[in-house]
Structures are given as structure tokens and as C-alpha cells.
């Protein structure tokens, strides 16, 4: 976690202004996404655990709606469409887009190339 936080800035302390991080790719809500193929998702009472077998990162998804979103990403043309389909309201949307951006950065979700 400490390393991830330090990745958010450059070595000289200058803040990085782009959403791209060294670990993952920039999250574009208008693009097609899917749960990464190297990721296992285990449902839990609070939401789900996701584990990436490649980078060995573990994350908690702390909302069952977010779990549904991650599972449904592959069925929709964009992440935005997935959020709508899963009933995420406009008020909730920023938090869910941030969550998906976090998951993209840690490579838990990946951009689809077949759309």
C-alpha cells in the first residue's frame, strides 16, 4: 500500500496529474471493461474479496452493488452502461467510478479489446 501511494507522485515530489499509474491503465468510464482474467472473486457478506494471481494483490469490494458491477462489466459496452444497468444512481456514480479506477490501477479490471 505504501508503495502504491508513493507511485502517485514523481520522485521529486511533483504531483502526477494524469490518471495513468505505472501499475495499471487509465480508467475511462466510456470504454469497455471486464474483470481481469487473472482475478478470482469470492463473494463475502460485506461484498467480495478479489485476488489477482499475477501481482498477488488482494482487495475488498465493500458493496454488493460494486460486486455486481464488476461481474457485469463484460456484458455491457462501457463501464458507464454497466453502472446504469446495475442501478447506480447519479449521486453514487462518482464513488463507483473512483472504485473502478482504483480497480483498474491495481489491474483487477482490464479494458476489453474485443469491443
Amino acid at each position: 500500500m505504501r508503495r502504491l501511494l508513493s507511485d502517485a507522485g514523481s520522485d521529486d515530489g511533483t504531483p502526477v496529474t494524469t490518471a495513468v499509474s505505472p501499475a495499471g491503465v487509465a480508467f475511462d468510464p466510456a470504454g469497455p471493461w471486464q474483470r481481469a482474467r487473472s482475478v478470482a472473486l469470492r463473494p463475502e457478506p460485506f461484498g467480495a474479496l478479489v485476488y489477482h494471481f499475477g501481482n498477488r494483490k488482494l482487495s475488498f469490494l465493500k458493496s454488493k452493488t460494486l460486486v455486481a458491477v464488476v461481474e457485469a462489466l463484460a456484458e455491457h459496452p462501457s463501464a458507464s452502461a454497466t453502472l446504469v444497468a446495475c442501478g447506480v444512481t447519479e449521486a453514487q456514480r462518482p464513488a463507483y467510478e473512483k472504485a473502478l479506477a482504483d480497480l483498474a490501477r491495481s489491474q483487477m479490471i482490464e479494458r476489453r479489446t474485443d469491443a
Partner: protein
Amino acid sequence: MPETHTDVDAAPAPAAEETLVEESLVEEVSIDGMCGVY
């Protein structure tokens, strides 16, 4: 005579989803260094 407290107003609990949305929906945990755990 034992004193009873029946006049305490219970504040309505906020909707669970609202509470969740205010905090991060994703929490990353590092498992590096958990030797012997996995």
C-alpha cells in the same frame, strides 16, 4: 427504585448504501510479508 431511561431518542440510522458511498468502496490490502499464511 431503579431509574429507567426510556426517553432516549434513537436517531434514525442512515441508509447503509449512503454510508458506503461516502467511504471508499474498495480497500486494497497488501499480503506481502505474510509468510506462512499462504
